[in-house]
């Protein structure tokens, strides 16, 4: 599989990356993939604002290297991988949240979105899982990816994904049951 040198948009010299159209135009790719990728980031960060920042960063990086990434069999897999990793990175997440806060301060937008409240207990529990388990859950359930693609995204075997999912489901079931019992009392 072809790989690119870096995933960090700030480390890609735009002047060295001629922008040409690949098999699919970047615009088409962006419009078809933005929402699923944003959803992935929301699930993994818990913050719509931070998710928007991370998603934009990833697509910007893809845009700048579209000559190369656009030729991948599944360029969306590259973006998913970038977003998936950045969303669970404390440093990236913190930076994205800070930028989002500053943007909201400037624009007067509100910083809390109803999307963040949707099934908040469940997604909070997902985010409390070990990173790989949380990523496996988000890629499997939210994006509906087959195990093979989840494994490709996470850089592990299908068996490992299966294990992550099994452990994640078990932990989630236990935690959510415990929370329900707690509330019941």
């Amino acid at each position, binding site marked *: 599989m072809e*790989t690119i*040198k*870096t995933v*960090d*948009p*700030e*480390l890609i010299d*735009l002047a060295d990356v001629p*922008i040409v159209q690949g098999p699919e135009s*970047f*615009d088409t790719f*962006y*419009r078809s993939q*933005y*929402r*699923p990728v*944003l*959803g992935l980031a*929301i699930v993994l960060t818990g913050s719509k604002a931070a998710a*928007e*920042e991370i998603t*934009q*960063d990833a*697509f*910007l990086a893809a*845009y700048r290297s579209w000559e190369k990434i656009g030729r991948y069999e599944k360029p969306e897999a590259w973006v998913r*991988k*970038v977003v998936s*990793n950045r969303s669970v*990175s*404390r*440093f*990236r997440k913190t930076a994205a949240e*800070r*930028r989002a806060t*500053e*943007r909201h301060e400037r624009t007067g937008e509100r910083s809390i979105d*109803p*999307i963040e409240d*949707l*099934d908040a207990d*469940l*997604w909070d529990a997902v*985010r*409390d*899982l*070990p*990173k*790989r388990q*949380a990523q496996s859950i988000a890629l499997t*359930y*939210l994006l*509906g990816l087959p195990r093979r693609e989840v494994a490709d995204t*996470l*850089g*592990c075997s299908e068996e490992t994904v299966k294990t992550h999912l099994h452990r994640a*489901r078990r932990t*989630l*079931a236990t935690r*959510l049951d415990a929370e329900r019992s707690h509330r019941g009392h």
Partner: protein
Amino acid sequence: MDIDRQLEEASARLTGAIAKEPIPATPSEGTERTKRPRQGGVLAVAALALGIIGLFVVVNQTDEPQVPAASSTTTTVAAERVRSYIDFNTGLTVDYPVSWHRGSQYAIEPVIPFDPSGDETEILALGSTELESGASQACPDLPVAAMSALGVDDALMIVTADLVPHHGTPWPDTWSPEAFGPEGDISTVVQDCTDRFDLVAYRNRFVVGGESGRVLIVTTNTGSDTTLDQLWAALDSIEFIPVPEPDSVRAQPEWTLEYLGDWYRADSELMPSLGFDSVTVATFPLVSGSEGRCAHMPSRALAELGPDDTLVTFFFNAGEGQPWPAEGFDDSVFPATGRTDAHECADRPDLEIHWGPWSTGSSGLYLLVAFGEDVDEGLRAETWAIASSLTPVRTEGGACVTTLPAEPDWVPPDGWPASPSDPASRWFGTPDLWTSLPVDGLFVERKSIWWSQHYMDSGVNPNPDINVRMTQLDGDGVVFSEGGTNGTTRTDGLFMIAHAPLEPPSPGCWQISAEFEGHTLTYVVHVP
């Protein structure tokens, strides 16, 4: 309802909600991410562009946990407590379990600097057990002592950076044995070097952001999944983030202050009625305002301080105070003060305020450090490092702000003379690492000589691991010296001599940083 169905239904609801979200404009060449505004000509330079020749932050980054290290922070991720480390030179960040141990830089592979073909330097050493330093002549580029000491359920990883970039494999997003490639399995070599046939090791060279370095991992074939998971998770967590270049401000004729480039700075305008100069740096935009009985406090700025913000203000009132702490400020040296004017003037009783007078003998100031209630240990350590970076200086050679010895003279520990034999020089540094500085700040070519209370027996270690960087502040020049020998004179005692002499190749303003056993000493000279 079973968890599978809950996840499916929640995913469907979220997908439905996101389907109503507008799609922002397509990123284009003109797209600019929102950047934090900068003040006062502050520069932000991706540290990766600097590679390992980046500037040292003038703080000791390698002190271990009791005193918060400048680049260490403790946090909680999921259910697992991890410690995060940032290497300010390369921008490497890593999360690792608190139960793991991080070796001091350069401590684990001491032979590498002396390997004729070795042109790499260690930037990260982590182990599930304490890492012992030491190699062997037969295996000069492997941490033989650390590998040999691994328990049956231990693992270690070492990341080095090449001084000159090499070709290599792109840095993987996720790590596994396969990431090291078909040639990456060096278990046989490691087993031969250690006589430990249970060790499993992988090593390869990787490239990121135009820089290259090697990653070595060593585990045992008896190790648990937990240890392996921790190892892979730590590797997966490694990122190379753009680190703001330390910026410097001439705070007063007598002082310079170093702070990170994405902090905000305001000078005396913050407290226009104060009556003497001040400098404030903070993690948030600074708003001017201090009137009446609160003219002596940055009241408006303190009022704006968020829960995860910090602020440092130096009031150059030239008064007298406690002796300036040689090892820098922290919570123990400068504990939080009770109710202060800062609380009153900002109407912020929730703030953690450290407030008091300090003096170097010839100059004095008041220091105010304010923390929001949710500041994590990393930012706390960074804040103290910035407060500690205030350094007495004077100007020579145009804009070059050179470092001068402290007044009164700093005196080394017992066993060394109270002043150097050269009458035109004075001691400068700490007991951990010191040198002699010209009293006038002008550079004189000489051997690169360093002293330390940790280097007292040349017989035990004739070749001390002293590393010296000379970085031109007004140009691109960089000279790096790894390793050294020793010398002794009746008048100056035992000292280390870095391999490369102190001979900057061009005139200008040069920052000289030495590192020995995790202790760093930095100063600036003008080379005429």
